[in-house]
């Protein structure tokens, strides 16, 4: 503690003295250098786009600090007046950081570089805007679909293609039939509803939102949210209980060859589409069916997420950062990256279900010109399904207390799953916490 509080205080002391933006020797945008944070080069999708930037701006000295976004590292860097020029982070964090002034508005950047924000999907646009200003440019576009393990469905006497999530009673019954427990151990998780993180989706399926459209009023006390949470919790309870199921899912190797589909550990699950993209590479011959998740009225519904590019307060080269952002998110660059991925997959003899970007214009080209039927029907059908649900995407509205609000409902759902509170009581508590956080953030 002494060490931690010392380190913490050292950061605070430096922050208090240094001032944000101080120590900038170079004129804004004048220095031909760019430092990124939160981004890496895991594959050709990343390297192709970075190469495009390097080719267009050979004079820029690019420093990519590889590794996932780390809140502490980022905030310490901003507070000490030595932030990266551009940061790659989860769009859910944008509201909190924007409200606190940790990232800059990008309206001038968007205007100057002519970034066509209207090319991006509306849900993604919504996530990077706060109080009418752009604070980031969206990158990938993840949407949630229902992934079915055909073997498990057939064993449960169901036709995978006909599974319909709008009938909650039938869904619960199917989950139980798909579930396998023996010797006190879970052998197959029948239906993984992905609580707590997908609570907004379950609420939406039941006709409710967690937060008002303007991001200012908590709706966590809506009885429909409690009903949805109670139902999803019931699914877990019927399949062995959260504590055992969670321990079981902790053993999954989602992105490896021994993934939960290959190992028959999952009957069906709600998941972001990137798991399907990964399966196409690790298990190209898997027998899967990808379906839209439907609300109780039978309409497809999906929750949207992904990362975005933002410029921290005090960035020394904001203009170069803006050029980087434009290159990384433009339709042309995405198309080049998708071509590289398609070529690689073709060489490996594996299907390429596509790259799902937040740029609708890029997607249009990628899915009409680059992604071709692979001969692996489950993946070809999956692409069609994912594209079909993308337009139906919604997001939890952006808010200046986004981090606190998320923590409130995540913790509530976790308390329910752990059997410590019922859904109504947990959400009532979360609502009070959320109201307090939203009021504090509104000032």
């Amino acid at each position: 503690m002494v060490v931690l509080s010392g380190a913490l205080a050292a950061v605070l002391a430096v922050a208090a003295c240094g001032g944000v933006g101080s120590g900038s020797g170079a004129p804004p945008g004048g220095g031909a250098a760019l430092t990124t944070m939160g981004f890496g080069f895991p594959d050709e999708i990343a390297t192709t786009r970075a190469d495009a930037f390097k080719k267009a701006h050979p004079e820029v000295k690019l420093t990519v600090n590889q590794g996932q976004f780390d809140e502490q590292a980022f905030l310490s860097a901003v507070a000490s007046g030595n932030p990266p020029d551009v940061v790659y982070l989860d769009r859910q964090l944008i509201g909190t950081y924007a409200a606190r002034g940790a990232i800059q508005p990008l309206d001038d950047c968007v205007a100057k570089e002519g970034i066509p924000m209207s090319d991006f999907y509306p849900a993604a646009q919504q996530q990077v805007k706060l109080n009418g200003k752009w604070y980031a440019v969206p990158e990938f576009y993840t949407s949630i679909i229902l992934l079915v393990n055909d073997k498990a469905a057939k064993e449960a006497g169901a036709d995978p293609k006909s599974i319909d999530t709008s009938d909650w009673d039938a869904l619960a019954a199917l989950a139980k039939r798909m579930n396998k427990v023996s010797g006190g151990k879970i052998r197959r998780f029948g239906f993984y509803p992905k609580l707590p993180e997908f609570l907004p989706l379950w609420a939406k399926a039941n006709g409710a939102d967690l937060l008002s459209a303007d991001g200012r009023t908590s709706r966590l006390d809506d009885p429909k949210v409690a009903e949805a949470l109670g139902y999803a919790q019931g699914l877990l309870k019927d399949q062995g209980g959260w504590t055992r199921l969670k321990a079981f899912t902790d053993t999954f190797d989602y992105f490896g060859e021994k993934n939960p589909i290959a190992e028959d550990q999952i009957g069906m699950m709600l998941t972001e589409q990137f798991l399907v993209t990964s399966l196409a590479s690790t298990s190209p011959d898997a027998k899967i069916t990808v379906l839209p998740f439907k609300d109780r009225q039978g309409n497809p519904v999906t929750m949207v997420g992904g990362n975005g590019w933002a410029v921290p307060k005090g960035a020394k080269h904001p203009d170069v950062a803006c050029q980087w952002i434009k290159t990384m998110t433009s339709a042309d660059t995405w198309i080049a990256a998708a071509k590289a991925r398609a070529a690689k997959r073709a060489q490996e003899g594996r299907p390429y279900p596509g790259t799902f970007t937040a740029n609708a214009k890029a997607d249009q080209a990628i899915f009409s010109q680059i992604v071709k039927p692979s001969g692996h029907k489950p993946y070809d059908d999956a692409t069609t399904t994912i594209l079909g649900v993308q337009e139906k995407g919604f997001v939890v509205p952006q808010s200046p207390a986004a981090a606190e609000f998320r923590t409130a409902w995540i913790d509530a759902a976790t308390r329910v799953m752990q059997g410590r509170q019922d859904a109504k009581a947990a959400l009532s508590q979360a609502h009070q916490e959320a109201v307090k956080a939203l009021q504090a953030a509104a000032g």
Partner: protein
Amino acid sequence: MARPLSGLARREARWAYVFLLPWLLGLVIFQAGPMVASLVLSLTDYDLISSPRFVGLGNYAEMLEDPTVATAIGNTAFYTVLHVPLALVVSLALALMLNRVTGRAAGFFRTAFYLPSMTPYVAVGVLFLFLLNGQAGLVNQFLGLFGVDGPQWTTDPAWVKPGVVLMSLWNLGSTTIILFAALRNVPRDLYEAAMIDGAGPWQRFRSVTLPMISSALFFVVIINTIAALQMFDQVYTMFFGNQTAQNSYGDAALFYVVYLFQQGFQFLHMGYASALAWLLFAIIAVITVVQVKVGNRLVYYEAEPPGGTR
């Protein structure tokens, strides 16, 4: 009244200060300065980005109304109360065993017993997530050999903290070495005298070993208590290290410093985090004072401290 120091003692004291100087400089520059800064910041509303705004004792008042503070203190106290005695008993047992090993094997075993302490805390956290997994972990597989259906150590809120205590026993190398060194310093003639008087092994342990190593025991109780109250690295890695983990485990492993860290770096409430740090400092100070008061009655010091009045 203190006795005046002899010339030799004065020279020794001067050299002692010279050797202490680098540490003292470090203390003032890297610890005391930032601590004062954090004390000032604890009286402010500060989000790291904007200038701090003075709020008086507002953060301290908020702590009283924040139920999560009570949860975090409860979790930390639970862990400390279980960990410290257990760590002491296990370390002492290991040190006693080491003390019996002689010859070439002694060096090997001393190294082997200390080796786990070389593992970085983050790696220990990840390792124990696997070992303690209720479905596939080695701990439950081992319990299964005896027909025991092990608990869900990592996911059941009732078993998360006992699991963390179990994990904490991995890093007992330092405590063991300190106790081992103390055991080596117990004069052999005391044991011989006790044996001549007919004392058995338990009596020798109870009446010779324990009193003679009581100062070392006292020391490790204090440092282990402080370390337990500051528990962070392994728990953060296991239960809060990434968003998926943060989504899943709730507050069963929300230790005090983890909450402090969340407030500071997740919610940008640096003023509040600083106040939390000072509350912990006060708690540790009070506990340590009580331990010292109690310890002074129980501990046997072989040598009178220079100028001491005991």
